[in-house]
């Protein structure tokens, strides 16, 4: 979730009231801004991902004013009509087809407010704009631009301008290879025949979306009038982004002007009109979702405080949803605002009385029983990660090829790249970390493995395994055999077939497979000394692995997709 820094004094002045810091921190938590820390008059909050309109101090102040009852129905921003025209060339269609723009005039920046604008732009890029892939935002000093503005796309070699914070004119390829923003975002343009470009009537470049603006049109503390553009793929998202920025600026008394955008050979439309949407919701639906029993007028009053102009129509509420509230997809989203406006601290918990009988999975019951038995046999339980590595699962275990492992595409460490296909390797790794601990060491793990099973819905299957290992100065096949036989007997098996096994992980002639229930379910033996050597295990190890899923199919039937 995005974090945001707010100046305490700035927030209070936007609220129009000074609220003690402690109280303010609690209030912020009640409107989806969880306070992380407060330092030197700066409050760091974590804003929930659904509310990009809260990514600036102005947006937070707007919401808090309503929550405190200092403002109803949200602010009414007067939207003018700008004379600045934007013409969209047909060439952008294949690269970055849409644009939404706004002009904001009468801005009076302070160092705090300009910092908030930069922060808002950056946070929107990270979240709503999906790291500029979905949309990207540019803000310019309109007085340094000569309208009309063209949104077009040029071949890379036709592009040259001075990017923000650079001292010289650079070509598109220079920008993408040398400018920090160019390097960071070049993957969004690479391979395209043309790059998007915003140019004014004199040919002055405003920006090369989604990479970087030009130095000549940049915004400074002295800037009074702004031009904002958002380019991207989804017109709705562009409109949301431009509304959020424009409305934040309007919170500091600037005026918003909608901008006419003309698509070449197509439609002409006004962007950033900030026109609210209407949504109708039944009062009873809100009450029954929240467990409230509030009269419709009271619900309307709460919605008004939460920034929605609301009309009562019989048992229904018609809410106007401001353009910057892009989180309202469904009436349940309005219901949540009612809950927030009511105040989560005041909602009374109601005992849950659903007449059901609880029960454990049959597999959980069996797992418990087997864990008890193993502990009773004197084994210490171990809990490993089920993520492992090919090296640990096969190479080190002398299993060359033939074993297909379920493998991660984007592992974060070389130790954890596959899901384990058996559990004995986990136990051997465990023992290798404890070579100086008192012997004998008897350990077991009851855990899952995942194997490819291409016919299955998830193309994999889960098996529950029991593995046990014994190490001591002297230990042999018989030690682990005793555990295996005793376990089988305790689980109610009377007889089983024993087959000598030739398995590369075990000493030849000292490994066996036990066949109970008509399937080979237990593998046991003395671990091969080459494995001990590679793990630097100083003493012999005898180990077994039981496939519980096939040994006790009824109990584990519930663990199938």
């Amino acid at each position, binding site marked *: 979730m995005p974090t945001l820094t707010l100046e305490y004094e700035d927030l209070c002045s936007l609220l129009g009231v000074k609220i003690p810091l402690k109280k303010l921190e609690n209030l912020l938590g009640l409107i989806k801004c969880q306070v992380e820390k407060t330092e030197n008059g700066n409050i760091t909050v974590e804003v929930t991902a659904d509310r990009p309109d809260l990514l600036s101090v102005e947006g937070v102040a707007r919401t808090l004013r309503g929550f405190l009852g200092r403002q109803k129905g949200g602010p009414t921003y007067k939207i003018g009509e700008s004379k600045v025209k934007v013409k969209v060339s047909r060439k952008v269609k294949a690269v970055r087809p849409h644009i939404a723009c706004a002009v904001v005039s009468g801005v009076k920046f302070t160092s705090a407010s300009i910092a908030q604008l930069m922060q808002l732009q950056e946070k929107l890029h990270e979240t709503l704009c999906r790291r500029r892939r979905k949309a990207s935002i540019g803000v310019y000093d309109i007085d340094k631009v000569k309208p009309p503005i063209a949104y077009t796309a040029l071949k890379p070699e036709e592009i040259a301008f001075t990017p923000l914070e650079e001292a010289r004119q650079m070509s598109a390829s220079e920008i993408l290879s040398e400018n920090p923003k160019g390097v960071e975002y070049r993957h969004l343009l690479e391979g395209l025949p043309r790059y998007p470009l915003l140019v004014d009537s004199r040919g002055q470049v405003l920006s090369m979306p989604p990479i970087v603006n030009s130095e000549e049109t940049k915004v400074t503390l002295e800037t009074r009038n702004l031009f904002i553009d958002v380019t991207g793929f989804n017109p709705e998202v562009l409109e949301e982004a431009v509304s959020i920025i424009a409305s934040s600026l309007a919170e500091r008394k600037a005026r918003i002007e909608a901008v006419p955008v003309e698509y070449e050979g197509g439609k002409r439309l006004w962007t950033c009109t900030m026109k609210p949407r209407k949504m109708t919701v039944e009062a009873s639906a809100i009450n029954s979702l929240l467990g409230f029993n509030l009269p419709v007028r009271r619900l309307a009053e709460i919605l008004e405080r939460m920034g929605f102009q609301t009309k009562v129509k019989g048992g229904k509420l018609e809410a106007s949803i401001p353009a910057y509230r892009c989180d309202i997809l469904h009436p349940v989203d309005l219901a949540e605002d009612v809950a927030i406006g009511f105040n989560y601290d005041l909602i*009374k918990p109601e005992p849950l009385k*659903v007449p059901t009988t609880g029960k454990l999975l049959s597999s959980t019951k069996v797992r418990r029983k087997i864990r008890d038995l193993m502990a009773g046999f004197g084994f210490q339980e171990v809990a490993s990660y089920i993520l492992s590595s090919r090296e640990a699962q096969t190479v080190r275990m002398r299993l060359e090829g033939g074993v297909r492992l379920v493998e991660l595409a984007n592992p*974060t460490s070389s130790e954890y790249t596959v899901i384990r296909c058996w559990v004995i390797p986990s136990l051997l790794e465990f023992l290798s970390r404890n070579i100086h601990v008192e012997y004998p060491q008897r350990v077991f793990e009851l855990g899952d493995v995942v194997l490819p099973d291409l016919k299955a819905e998830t193309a994999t299957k889960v098996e529950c395994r029991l593995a046990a290992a014994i190490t001591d100065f002297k230990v042999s096949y018989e030690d682990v055999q005793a555990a295996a036989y005793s376990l089988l007997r305790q689980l109610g098996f009377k007889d089983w077939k024993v087959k000598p096994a030739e398995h590369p992980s075990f000493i030849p002639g000292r490994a066996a497979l036990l066949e109970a229930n008509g399937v080979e379910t237990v593998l046991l033996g003395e671990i091969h000394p080459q494995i001990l050597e590679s793990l630097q295990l100083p003493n012999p190890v005898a180990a077994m692995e039981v496939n519980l899923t096939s040994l006790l199919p009824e109990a584990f039937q519930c663990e199938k997709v």
Partner: protein
Amino acid sequence: MTWKIEEASQRILKFLADRKGKASLSEICEKLKLDPSPAMRTLLTLQEQGLLKTFEKHERFFKLTPEGEAYASRGLPERRLVEAAVRLGGTASLEESLKEASLPREAGNIALGWIVRKGWGKIRREKGKTLVEAFHTPAEGKDETLLRLMAEKGGADSQWLEAQGLLGTALELKRRNLVEEKVKRLRDVELTEAGWRQAGEVRVEAPRKPVVTVLTGELIRSGKWREVEFRRYDVSAIPPTLHPGKKHFYLEFLEEVRDILVAMGFEEVWGPYVETEFWNFDVLFQPQDHPAREIHDSYQLKYPRFGRLPSRSLALKVGKTHKDGWKTGSKGWKYKWNPEVARRLVMRSQTTAVSVRQLSARQNPPVKVFCLSRVFRPDVLDAKHSMEFHQCDGIMGDWGLNLRHLLGFFKEFCRALGFKEVKFRPGYFPFTEPSVEVFVKHPTLGWVEVAGSGVFRPEVTLPLGARFPVLAWGAGIGRLAMVKLGIGDIRELHTRNLELLREAEV
């Protein structure tokens, strides 16, 4: 042997009691025939047990020098010279007397000096010759007595000498270099009151029966155990450590959570670790460009890469819901939903995937199920992050359920886990609305976030065919275990330290 010390200590107590409670170490060793150093160890042990006290003192001890020893057996030179003179008729020259006494020439002057000093005879000089005059054998002098006694006793301590009035004599002999003085450390032993009581109960009997160490089956069967005595053990000696077979402390905590939920009427359910994005994300109304679906936030699979969509009709409904809301009343996410993306396999990143799988299979309320299992996120393992951890997810679905029931559930669940104070804050999850974050008050850590929850969105429930409200919640159970068990490092939950597991409280 430890049992001997045991026996020796009883004999010492008894001995001391017979001696009115006091004796010296040397007496004890002498009378009880014990070697001094084991005896000393026994005494110190008894002292530790508060049964007796020992006092150390230093004493002067006198011992014959080799010269003294020689004189003790053959007589002092002055005596031998005087007696020679007597034998020679009362007056004899020094040479004759020395010869008669078998004394070397050098001894002459010393002997003459002492004869004069002791008044045993006279010395005259006549015609350049020294004459010794003595007419009767002198009585034994104190110095000679002492030499004799010391030769017999092998020395004498100052206390004894004083009592015999011989301390001055001893010092005189020391000056003659016939005796040397040493300092000896002595130990006196005295019974304490507890020691007296203990001694009263001691009955020392010489073992009359053969002593055996092992009670054999043969001894029992033959009845011969009656004729033997069992070697006594030092029952306070430290035994070897036993390491019981033990269940894992963290997994036991998870079992406790399962039991709590079953007691609250939840049925446990299961789901796979490898999941299609369909169940992990799409059904949960997370759009296909949602940040959680990027490689930074979920593990994708290299092999196998794709699974199957469960049914065409469900996939269609979910896809339409994403696009425009389908019949759910939502405006949807406004994009073209791609079934190929939904087929991609990921490591389950949230156990909520299990909840929705279960919900799709249970069309009739009430539904009250939970799943406690592992989830995976692309993190590098360190104290605070893990690529694999446990989550506990549950749903409660029935007609008439609402947000307040969700809060009511948490109050009860947290109380069962030992947290009395709970607070709720608005939160956000793509699949619930309203959403609630749950915090509990920890005595030292303060408010700790333990769970996320909410009411499933209609965009989640309606495509699955569930028309009733469904409350959903998920708890980071590993984090909760850390808070409950006082663990600061997440890796410790899956520790590879055997000693730690052996010592962990169960």
